[in-house]
């Protein structure tokens, strides 16, 4: 049953992936990369929105041409099932009977309205592990709130707290969805261990808001301990100085530097011991924090004369934390990221050979399964013919009836 030649942690686990867009698919992708058989259930009548979102390969829109869909849905199979038909719902439940896990992230009440809520899925598979992720959670006064990723990032405090002090606040990268996807995958592993010990499945309700706030505890603490309601501090952290992102030589090139107190003298040396370093305003960590803006201006005089790589090399040789502030152009040229499987290539039947997200780890004995995201309905024959044991006539009839669609 497992298509993998070697034992993988999730070999033998099968997932019914009802999810779409970002957080749900990202969760299911992790499971697929670790050996689970993930069956994404889509429909031409209800396409995953990312299939319709550019950029598109070759500049042509097409449901199998979406870069975005390919990023979120690697290592999965896909079947089409029209869940607005009664037969479609029945077949979905038959798929679930063969699955250990079901993942969904639709709006509040959607699965229940389709007759595919937890109670119904339990009838199909009593020990099903069902993970439902949503912006705010499935209970509480905001359970029906509409939210895109940026809404959750705003509600979580992350948007308010992020940004340069004299410029705009906000988070434009897709952070909450990524974090929630990994969190959801984590809960599935907990549930699998629970099932091994007790034989029971469970329903798990993952909140994107809470997943994000888990990683912002210090702000809650500061309010309680010191009545301080923090606001955005850019790259500053109130503990080190210099500590910022500095302009370098080159077109919009920057370097991040953080100098611990013990390294201040080494840092001055790295800059060639300019006279300004001896100014009492910069003599102690306390005075450097107090005069941080001026300090940063002075440091910039030095950094502007060098490239980020030069600065990084000079400072790292002295044991000082520094890194270029990379853009993706730089990162995609970094061979170590490919060596470590952080970035991988996938070969898509229609989009070709493309750089794709890999994993944040490498291991001694757990291989990773990376495969292009599925074409719509790519695995219909496998799912309906092999897994559900339907014969070709049955399948054809369902296609004609618009059920397998």
């Amino acid at each position: 049953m497992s298509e993998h030649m070697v034992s993988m942690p999730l070999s033998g686990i099968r997932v019914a992936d009802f999810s779409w867009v970002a957080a749900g698919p990202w969760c299911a992708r992790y499971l697929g990369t670790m050996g689970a058989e993930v069956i994404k259930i889509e429909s031409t009548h209800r396409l995953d929105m990312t299939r319709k979102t550019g950029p598109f390969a070759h500049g042509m829109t097409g449901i199998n041409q979406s870069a975005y869909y390919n990023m979120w849905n690697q290592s999965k199979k896909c079947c089409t099932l029209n869940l607005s038909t009664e037969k479609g719902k029945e077949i979905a439940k038959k798929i679930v009977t063969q699955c250990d896990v079901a993942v969904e992230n639709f709006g509040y009440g959607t699965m229940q309205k389709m007759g595919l809520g937890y109670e119904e899925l339990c009838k199909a598979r009593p020990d099903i592990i069902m993970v439902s992720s949503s912006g705010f959670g499935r209970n509480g006064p905001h359970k029906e709130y509409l939210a895109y990723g940026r809404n959750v990032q705003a509600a979580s405090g992350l948007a308010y707290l992020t940004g340069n002090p004299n410029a705009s606040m906000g988070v434009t990268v897709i952070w909450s969805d990524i974090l929630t996807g990994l969190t959801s995958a984590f809960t599935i592993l907990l549930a699998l261990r629970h099932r091994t010990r007790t034989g029971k499945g469970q329903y798990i309700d993952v909140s994107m808001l809470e997943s994000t706030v888990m990683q912002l505890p210090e702000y809650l603490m500061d309010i309680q301990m010191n009545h301080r309601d923090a606001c955005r501090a850019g790259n500053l952290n109130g503990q080190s100085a210099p500590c910022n992102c500095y302009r370098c030589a080159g077109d919009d090139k920057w370097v991040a530097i953080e100098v611990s107190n013990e390294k201040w003298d080494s840092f001055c040396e790295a800059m060639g011991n300019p006279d300004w370093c001896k100014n009492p305003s910069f003599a102690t960590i306390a005075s450097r924090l107090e005069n941080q803006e001026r300090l940063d201006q002075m440091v910039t005089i030095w950094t502007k004369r060098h490239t980020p790589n030069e600065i990084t090399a000079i400072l790292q040789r002295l044991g000082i934390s520094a890194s270029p502030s990379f853009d993706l152009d730089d990162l995609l040229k970094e061979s170590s990221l490919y060596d470590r499987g952080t970035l991988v290539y996938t070969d898509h039947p229609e989009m070709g050979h493309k750089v794709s997200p890999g994993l944040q780890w490498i291991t001694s004995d757990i291989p990773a399964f990376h495969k292009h995201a599925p074409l719509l309905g790519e695995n219909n024959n496998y799912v309906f013919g092999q897994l559900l044991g339907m014969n070709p006539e049955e399948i054809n009839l369902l296609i004609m009836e618009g059920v397998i669609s």
Partner: protein
Amino acid sequence: MDLPLNGLRVIEIADSVAGAYCGKLLADYGAEVIKIEKPGSGDGTRRLGPFLNDIPDSEGSGMFLYLNSNKKGITLALGDPQGRQILGKMCSWANTLILGLAVAEIERLGYQQLLESNKHLTIITLTPYGLTSPYRYYEATELTLQHASGIPYYTPGDVTDPEKEPPVKLAGRQAEMIGGLSGAFTAILASLQTDATGKGNLVDIALIAAPLLSNIWNLGLISYTGKLPKRGQIKTPIQPQQIMPCKDGFIQLSCNEERHWKNFLDVIGNPGWASDARFADGFLRGKNWEVLEPLLTDTLKDWSKQDITEKAQTAGVPCTIVATPSDLMNDAQMLSRNFYVNTPHQKMERFLCPGSPFSSTEIKLGKVQAAPRLGQHNKEIFCDKLGYSRKQLRLFYQNNII
């Protein structure tokens, strides 16, 4: 209390937020986690704070207490050969060893030897660039981890003057913590693998990597179109999808679809300017945002953020407040789900921290157990668990082994 990770035996050696968060997530769901700290000074996060009234207190550091609740704590001098010998003994008890340390320190510990001697043992390493990276000996902090991941470069959104807006990190310790979460995830994965094969694993996590992967949108752009927009030239095509000021703060208004905008107009009373042809659809509104934005801002200045959010959501508009830390403490949704839990603090009767980001029909968490005082469980672990005598324990103290 029956929890999913009962039976998972974890040793945590972590002078970092990443390693400690990894151990925390395992401990919270039932793993037995023993944290090893340096004798005398203890973990670096004891000095991280925040502190009550800003007074440093190694038993009162907010981050230490959050990251280390539900764990046991011992001291052990791992720089000493005898300390490493004791670690070796502990590794035959453990099934998971978390190492959240610099690569040089991990190498000095002799991790390969530990794997050789304990075939069932999984070691999870959490290092800035990874054990095999050409940059593995680079010094790193949260600031440089994030900048190395590429996330800050695009974080200020619609930058108008790139010179004035340096790339900026996400608030908090996002790289360290998503790294820790990755560690907890792989720790359980590895345990599933070991159940099947009997053999442990080495899992080498790079803290720059998980944030890097969140750059999905831009990765798609460059991989499939070959081009990335330059900072200062990125303009949100459809508006409003923006943080907007209102009477007492800010809201995130995301009218991604036309019906969201129509619903929003109903909420704000269909002002006259709304029928302007320049605002007829999302792309036009994006094109003419300089004209629309001040009109919208002027309307919103009379609305409180909670009020507009409530009314907008009721009308079917993706609108949320831009929460400040005090908004978070009072958030009706998180409070109703009991998301905040009391975390023991010696000097505070009530110290609320995030609890669990999910609810479940089966997994029920109990009260949060206090993070260990420095060396609190030395006797329990060295004597009761590892079988050293009280006399040996005293000698360990005398020789600064613990």
